[in-house]
């Protein structure tokens, strides 16, 4: 099948949508499909052979945050040429409602179009104002995919209609087969907790975990906290009592392989995020690596953890509740083993093997419908 994929965000900036597009393209190519990805990129960025650069993206303030986007006459012409030259059986557009390559591709598309909606935002004034402009372009989409039930709800509220939910994919085996690092492994009396995420981004919730840490340390004096992620470690540890500083290790930015080993090693992975998550891929990665997960009860997390069946939940932004839940979990090895078991089964639905097949299923459904119209009859 010839598949054209449009990614609205710069290929040179790491991000969830970019990773998803990259993994999807690799998965499809490995199965013999012909894939071309159109994405914004600086002209001198080295790109994988399947990516076509669409020029430099311009930082613009849109919908409350600064996004790097492509628009204008030149970009539109490039998109049109790419679609024309590609002669795709199906066009897969990510985030079609962003004023970037995706929306331009929607405008120019003539064949079957599949779109994936990644974000979940509360209904905004800007979106309501933009609705009449977006509607004719979005009407061309034959199949809509939302990455979570939460994202689907946003989509239904903003644009009406419906979508199928296909989650983001994770390379489960990569995490499941990683070798644990003895330095990061805990013991019954001195367990280890893990946290991965931007240190200086309050929404990732490190301050909540830091506030809970003294109480956890009171119950488990030997407990260690391993923090991986970009940001100022000094600042993050500021409010921590001096006696406990030695028990918190800041690892800085770590590679994917190190991330997998860290998740394989820790006794509990803590996700104290306070908001702004539409999916929570890190929880799936932690479960893939067999780490018991303790997460704040955000809608998105609740869904990924199957309502608390595949991981423990605590009241969002409540450091006390986090500490209590962590202590209970650390005192109960049987429950942790059970969570590892449930988790490793639960993640199968997020494995690229399943997710890729579902997305391919959508392509086939859409192209089958389009072909049937060209056949005899109508």
């Amino acid at each position, binding site marked *: 099948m010839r598949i054209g994929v449009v990614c609205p965000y710069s290929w040179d900036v790491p991000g969830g949508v970019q990773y998803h597009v990259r993994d999807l393209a690799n998965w499809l190519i490995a199965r013999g499909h012909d894939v071309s990805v159109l994405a914004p990129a600086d002209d001198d960025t080295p790109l994988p052979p399947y990516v076509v650069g669409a020029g430099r993206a311009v930082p613009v303030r849109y919908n409350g945050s600064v996004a790097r986007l492509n628009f204008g006459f030149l970009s539109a012409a490039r998109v049109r040429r790419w679609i024309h030259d590609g002669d795709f059986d199906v066009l897969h557009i990510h985030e079609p409602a962003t004023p970037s390559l995706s929306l331009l591709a929607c405008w120019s598309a003539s064949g*079957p179009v599949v779109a994936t909606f990644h974000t979940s935002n509360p209904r905004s004034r800007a979106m309501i104002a933009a609705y009449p402009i977006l509607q004719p372009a979005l009407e*061309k989409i034959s*199949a809509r995919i939302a990455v979570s039930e939460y994202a689907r709800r946003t989509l239904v509220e903003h644009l*009406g*209609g*419906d979508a199928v939910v296909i989650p983001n994919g994770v390379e489960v085996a990569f995490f499941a087969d990683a070798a644990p690092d003895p330095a990061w492994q805990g013991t019954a009396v001195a367990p280890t907790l893990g946290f991965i995420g931007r240190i200086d981004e309050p929404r990732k919730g490190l301050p909540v975990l830091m506030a809970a840490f003294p109480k956890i340390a009171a119950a488990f004096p030997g407990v260690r906290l391993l923090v991986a992620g970009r940001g100022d470690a000094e600042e993050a540890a500021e409010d921590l009592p001096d006696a406990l500083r030695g028990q918190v290790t800041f690892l800085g930015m770590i590679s994917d392989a190190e991330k997998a080993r860290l998740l394989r090693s820790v006794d509990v992975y803590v996700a104290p995020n306070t908001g702004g998550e539409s999916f929570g891929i890190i929880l799936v990665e932690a479960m893939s690596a067999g780490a018991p997960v303790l997460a704040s009860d955000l809608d998105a997390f609740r869904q990924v953890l199957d309502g608390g069946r595949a991981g423990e939940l605590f009241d969002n932004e409540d450091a006390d509740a986090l500490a209590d839940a962590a202590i209970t979990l650390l005192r109960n090895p049987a429950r942790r083993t059970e969570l590892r078991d449930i988790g490793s089964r639960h993640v199968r639905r997020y*494995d690229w093997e399943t997710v890729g097949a579902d997305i391919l*299923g959508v392509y086939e459904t*859409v192209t089958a419908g389009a072909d*049937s119209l060209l056949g005899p009859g109508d």
Partner: protein
Amino acid sequence: MMTAVWIIIAVVAVGIYLSWTAGRLDRLHARVDSTRAALDAQLVRRASIALEIATSGLLDPASSLVLAGAAHDARGAAEDDREIAESELTRALRIVFEEPGQVEDLRARLGGDELVGELQTAVRRVPMARRFHNDAVRSARAVRRHRLVRYLRLAGHAPYPVTFEMDDEEPPTLLPGGTATG
């Protein structure tokens, strides 16, 4: 003189708008038709694989009979009874494959793994195709509700699009990762 120019401009503008809307509507009707064709294909595929499993002799006779009956009815249903018949097949599949052990057992038999795989694919794609179809119907209806479209009959003779309503919840035991639950 100026008024005449303005009138001509206005008429041309309205004409362009109307022709653009008609094109838009035409595209939407094509989408309704193609998503409906895709849904039909998926429903037929599901009924066929269900019938194949029922007649394979790999299931116990009681389950086989329940499944064969529902699959047969779904495949032969008249247009008006289709939604009910397909829902019945969904329920039959849920009942027959309620126990994870049933799925494991079928998988373990010769050729069973392949049949379960195909059924898994089929029961996943029906809800997909149905959502895409109903989504297309909703879009087409939204445009057809416009006053201008109604008064000028821009929709022509195209039938008013209808959604396809059925129970399409797949058996939980057939979800990826669902079969191993004890």
